[in-house]
């Protein structure tokens, strides 16, 4: 028998049919739904007189538009409110396995609540009208973002028409230094292969540094596979995966649990399986990362400097760097440690889980946010994360330091609600995209780990968190 990659196994086990040219019909187990990319799909379904194929595959929540404060006042923006109410109505009509509407105690970012309820399981195909669906690959699921037409396609047929991607292995061997995190692995990989480096690939992350990560850390790395251009990132099942899932609400129990675990433990690449591309990183050499530009590949280390575009030979890249520095208001060769954020954002589907909040709180504890910081926000990924953090007293650590402790949601990662940067404001952000205007028109984003964001909040400028932990 030929040795198979994890991706081969996931692909093969979901093939309904395949044309000779490779065009395949792939079965979808879990369909995550949020308010922004679904209304047109539900409308299309209805207009065509079609019924949803399997409503118990749907897990839905409202996260992108929802405010993170004054929940008792509802959603003030009427357009946002309409979108959230449209999701309420669509789920009421169509049904779902689970729906966590605005203000529900289990509501949260769709990529946080799926795993924490055990709605994401190994061996599944998981889709959502959201590019960060790659997050769920941390559970050895084949998980990827889709557009609204495909949301409608899955609603109507429980399948997608697609072709198999190529397989890339990213191997991170060795031990991460203290203060170096999953986020730094993700940014270091993107810095190495570029934001288009993974285009056309499904990435499997392997190696002792990946195995040593918690499920939260693995989710952070898989979450950012899409920033490397790969629709899917994934990690094989091991005891860490099984331990995380045991007892979760939608995870199997009893005899079914044992059967499931036996199967799940086969979800790893066979020895000698062939990858189309292999990238290797030494964990010990990865330093805390900070982006300086307007694409996640525009990244360097905390002890580094903003590059000088004049030194870049490729004309398209040089112009890109010049444009980015102008937008970011940075001069060439500025040391990263001299960059001073105006705002701090700890949150997003990349870094808003309990472990992220614990790590940030450990840096902040007993200190004060620098006077130059206009706003420091902590937005937990879900109601459950928020409750857990409050039980551990993390909320008090943050608020006593001068952070604001908010309600869960996507918040300032994409600024569809009121949480945003004003033009020219600079942010140390634990989110995933530093695109122009992403966190607010004219806003300037530096992507970092939760520890690095917390340290920048206290110091008022970026600092090497390795010196603090």
């Amino acid at each position, binding site marked *: 028998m030929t040795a198979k990659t994890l991706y081969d196994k996931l692909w093969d086990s979901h093939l*309904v*049919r395949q044309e000779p*040219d490779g*065009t395949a*019909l792939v*079965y979808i*187990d879990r369909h995550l739904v949020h308010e*922004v*990319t679904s*209304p*047109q799909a539900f*409308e299309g379904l209805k207009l*065509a007189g079609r019924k949803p194929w*399997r409503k118990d595959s749907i897990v839905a929540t409202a996260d*992108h*538009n929802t405010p993170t404060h004054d929940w008792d006042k509802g959603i003030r*923006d009427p357009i*946002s409110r*309409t*979108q959230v109410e449209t999701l309420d109505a669509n789920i009421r009509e169509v049904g779902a396995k689970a729906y966590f509407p605005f203000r529900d105690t289990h509501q949260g970012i769709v990529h946080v609540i799926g795993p924490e309820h055990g709605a994401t399981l190994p*061996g599944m195909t998981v889709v959502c*009208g959201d*590019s960060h669906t790659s997050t769920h690959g941390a559970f050895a699921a084949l998980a990827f*973002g*889709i*557009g*609204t*037409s*495909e949301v409608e*396609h899955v609603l*109507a*047929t*429980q*399948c997608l*028409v697609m072709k198999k*991607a190529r397989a890339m292995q990213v191997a991170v061997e060795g031990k991460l230094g203290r203060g170096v995190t999953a986020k730094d692995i993700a940014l270091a990989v993107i810095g190495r292969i570029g*934001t*288009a480096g993974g*285009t*056309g690939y499904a990435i499997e992350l392997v190696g002792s540094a990946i195995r040593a990560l918690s499920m939260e850390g693995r989710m952070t790395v898989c979450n950012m596979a*899409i920033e490397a*251009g*790969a629709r899917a990132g994934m990690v094989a099942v091991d005891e860490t995966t099984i331990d995380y899932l045991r007892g979760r609400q*939608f995870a*199997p129990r009893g005899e*079914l649990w044992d059967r*499931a675990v036996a*199967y799940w433990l086969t979800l790893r690449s066979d020895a000698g399986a062939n990858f189309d591309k292999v990238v290797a990183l030494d964990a010990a050499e990865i330093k805390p990362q900070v982006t300086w530009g307007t*694409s996640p590949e525009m990244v360097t280390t905390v002890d580094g400097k903003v590059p000088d575009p004049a030194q870049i030979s490729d004309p*398209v890249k040089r*112009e*890109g760097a010049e*444009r980015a520095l102008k937008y970011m208001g940075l001069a060439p060769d500025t040391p990263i440690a001299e960059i001073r954020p105006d705002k701090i954002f700890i949150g997003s589907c990349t870094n808003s889980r309990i472990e992220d909040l614990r790590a940030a709180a450990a840096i902040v504890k007993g200190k004060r946010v620098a006077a130059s910081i206009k706003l420091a926000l902590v937005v937990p990924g879900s109601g459950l994360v928020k409750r857990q953090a409050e039980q551990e007293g993390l909320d008090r650590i943050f608020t006593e330091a001068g952070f604001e402790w908010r309600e869960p949601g996507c918040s300032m990662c*994409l600024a*569809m609600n009121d949480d945003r940067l004003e033009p020219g404001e600079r942010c140390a952000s634990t989110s995933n*995209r530093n*695109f*122009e*205007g*992403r966190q607010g028109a004219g806003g300037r984003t530096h992507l970092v780990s939760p520890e690095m964001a917390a340290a920048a909040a206290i110091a008022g400028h970026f600092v090497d968190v390795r010196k603090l932990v």
Partner: protein
Amino acid sequence: MEKFVRREGLVAPLDRANVDTDAIIPKQFLKSIKRTGFGPNLFDQWRYLDHGEPGMDNAKRPLNPDFVLNRPRYRGATVLLARDNFGCGSSREHAPWALLDYGFQAVIAPGFADIFFNNCFKNGLLPIVLPADVVDKLFREVEATPGYRLAVDLENQSVTTPDGEEFRFNVDPFRKHCLVNGLDEIGLTLQHADRIRAFEDKRRAEQPWLFE
């Protein structure tokens, strides 16, 4: 979906790499529950000098004269010439909806992000991958030649310049078939409903925990 066989039109060059879908259509316009009306806000933050919000009268907003689509010579363009990794970032299908609503019918680039590329086909917007040196040459020709037009022939898989120079491109046969015939992909998939049901039954028996 409208059929796409052969189109010919004015070309506009957008000379920057890694154009993300946040730039193509900023998030504040994603609050709409419709598929239409995104054209006036295509590239909103580059195209206008003020900050755009839904509900504004876009005709009264100050245009950025430096942005390429605002130059009179590119008015009415239907082919967008772009750089590598066009459409990266968010999966928002509002990006192809906005490009189509503005009037674009095809985008030519050395490479596209996967989800955006996929979304284009679902809506009858043709993304064409040409080698970087060919795209370079087209950028030079477009910028040097006011009124520069390209003919895009999906059936023949070719792009033809005003001088008659022809560049062939690859396209997935199934996607081409759907686009040339304007087919509804969901309808095609539902022709295999029995196969899907049989697959599902087998899966339910093997992994019942997925169906609880």
